[in-house]
């Protein structure tokens, strides 16, 4: 196996006259992604120094991840919306409508009409299904207005921002609806985690899957006789990925459930806590959901026809149409997908608050768009990545909570976040210009 690979590699390696490839290009890692990871690490380190080491504790990293999930889920959908040269300003308002619909389903409609109360095993799943139907329907409707009636997305979703925010208000009379179903609340973060053992199981499975994906991609290239990375580069990338995954699991597992809470749980079950007992939170379900969505959306973007058409339409709508792609229906699909992701995001957001409040999701549209754009999605269309958007959401959230921990005044926090958004886009423009002029 090793012999054949090196042989094929040697056969297609650039001729001696070709410039020697740099270390990074041999690794075939996106330098832009590397820059973002660098920026993220810098933000973390600076805040860690400013907070005397309180920023990079397992507890804070755990909190950071669960705070990021809701915006990150929507940001993955926003990538597709922006890639097709549209925008969605209504995501925060739609989140409120989905959340209101799910809260009312659990606390009012199901108990009254079907006699299923909170705590019934079916309740959370019916509620989530209702939320998905609401989100996908609203998204598809807005997509139809944009694609088929050709009303600009900016206007449709600006109207949607007002409409859906107040539909949510109307549905709930502006009241806070809660508490929500206990199983439902497990999607919020700290109330639902895998625990230590299962977190390691998931981590190990993820490492195996990632390595298998790397290996099969390489095998595929070898089969077609395409240029491949040197083996050392492949191994290094594999090690970095495996280390990243297992490190992340280790950090989440290092965050232990406070003893007081454990005592309470044992008491509630009528047991006595054994001496020296401890338990870790591990990976939250909400983070698992985000990871599943990220993988699904990445596969969709890169390996399905739908994804290919989304990017082609963003790059050149006329060309896409002339290639037989139904760009109008595509717009409906993209916005319906956005709606579905908003509904899942609403599950996480309301579960985290343990209730539906009237102002849930306020200003989320701006956070989501900012996350996608910081993550390298070009507003001109055609360019953007799912992992970039999630990293963008993580950077935004780190800035926000870091500043809060340092004790920066609230107005200053927002001023900094706004300035960072503009700065990030400017850096991106400069970077792309350099790349284009190469």
């Amino acid at each position: 196996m090793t012999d054949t690979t090196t042989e094929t590699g040697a056969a297609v390696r650039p001729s001696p006259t070709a410039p020697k490839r740099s270390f990074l290009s041999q690794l075939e890692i996106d330098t832009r992604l590397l820059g973002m990871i660098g920026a993220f690490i810098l933000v973390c380190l600076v805040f860690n120094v400013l907070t005397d080491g309180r920023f990079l504790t397992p507890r804070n990293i755990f909190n950071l991840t669960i705070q990021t999930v809701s915006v990150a889920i929507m940001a993955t959908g926003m990538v597709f919306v922006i890639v097709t040269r549209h925008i969605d300003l209504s995501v925060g308002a739609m989140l409120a409508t989905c959340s209101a619909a799910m809260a009312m389903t659990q606390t009012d409609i199901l108990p009254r009409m079907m006699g299923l109360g909170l705590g019934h095993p079916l309740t959370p799943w019916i509620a989530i299904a209702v939320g998905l139907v609401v989100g996908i329907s609203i998204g598809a409707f807005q997509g139809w207005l944009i694609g088929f009636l050709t009303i600009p997305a900016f206007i449709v979703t600006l109207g949607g921002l007002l409409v859906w925010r107040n539909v949510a208000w109307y549905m709930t009379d502006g009241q806070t609806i809660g508490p929500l179903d206990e199983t439902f609340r497990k999607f919020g973060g700290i109330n639902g985690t895998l625990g230590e053992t299962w977190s390691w199981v998931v981590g190990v499975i993820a490492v195996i899957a990632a390595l298998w994906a790397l290996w099969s991609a390489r095998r595929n290239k070898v089969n077609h006789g395409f240029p491949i990375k040197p083996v050392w580069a492949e191994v290094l990338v594999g090690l970095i990925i495996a280390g990243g995954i297992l490190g992340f699991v280790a950090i989440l597992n290092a965050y232990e459930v406070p003893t007081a809470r454990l005592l309470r749980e044992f008491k509630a079950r009528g047991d006595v806590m054994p001496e020296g007992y401890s338990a870790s939170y591990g990976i939250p379900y909400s983070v698992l959901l985000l990871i599943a969505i990220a993988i699904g959306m990445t596969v969709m973007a890169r390996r399905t026809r739908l994804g290919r058409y989304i990017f082609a339409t963003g790059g050149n709508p006329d060309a896409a149409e002339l290639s037989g792609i139904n760009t109008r229906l595509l717009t409906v699909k993209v916005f319906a997908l956005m709606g579905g992701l908003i509904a899942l995001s609403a599950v996480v957001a309301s579960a985290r608050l343990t209730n539906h409040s009237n102002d849930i999701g306020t200003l989320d549209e701006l956070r989501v768009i900012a996350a996608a754009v910081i993550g390298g999605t070009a507003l001109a269309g055609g360019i953007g990545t799912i992992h970039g958007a999630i990293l963008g959401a993580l950077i935004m959230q780190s800035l926000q909570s870091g500043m809060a921990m340092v004790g920066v005044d609230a107005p200053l926090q927002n001023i900094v976040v706004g300035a960072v958004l503009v700065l990030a886009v400017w850096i991106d423009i400069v970077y792309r210009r350099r790349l284009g002029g190469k």
Partner: protein
Amino acid sequence: MTPLVELKNISLSFGGVRAVDNVSLDLYPGEVVGLLGHNGAGKSTLIKILAGAYQMDEGEIWIEGKKATIHSPRDARRYNIETIYQTLALADNLDAPSNLFLGRELTNRFGLVDDAQMEAETRKIMARLNPNFKKISEPVSALSGGQRQSVAIARAVYFNAKILIMDEPTAALGVHESKMVADLIKELKAQGLGIFLISHDTREMLELCDRVSVMKNGALIGTEKVGDVTEDDILSMIIMGKARDAA
């Protein structure tokens, strides 16, 4: 012999302007028919109707002796009509294989896009069309005009077209690349394809085409065999808008 394509009395108006006015044309296998005329004469509009990009108001399209219904580019592709547009119609952000197979991606057994297979096919056809083409996996925005043109041509040729429409295929090209396109047209013609060619270069048209049709203000002025006319005859048809015998 049955014509490959018969366009019968095609008309199309854009808000009161008759862009194509009662035009009839035909095309036989192994034949190159040139369309000439000023900008706005209706050439591109006419071929876009055949390519499915526009819908005609009146008229009929017959393909190989049967009436055809073409409502979309997808329909046109089903009749093995391939088009190279003047604008090339490439998605700049995608690489050459993605553009070549756009709308007709090869998929693996899970229904996922098979990039490796598409790349292999692209390398194969590019080796034939433009052996200098190396930037397979870069976005086509990074390619030169000639390379972009080869991608557009490869897309039309790859899928076993019977009817090829070429709208200004050499407009953006240098002398050497234009020669390559001319050779390709001759090769495809020898394979029995029917080709509609649009160009402003009258001399090139007389060299490549079997017949030329001249349009002005949406109407067909006349169709002539290239052996029967001189460059001056064609120019006077384009400029005066009169058929040769009337002039």
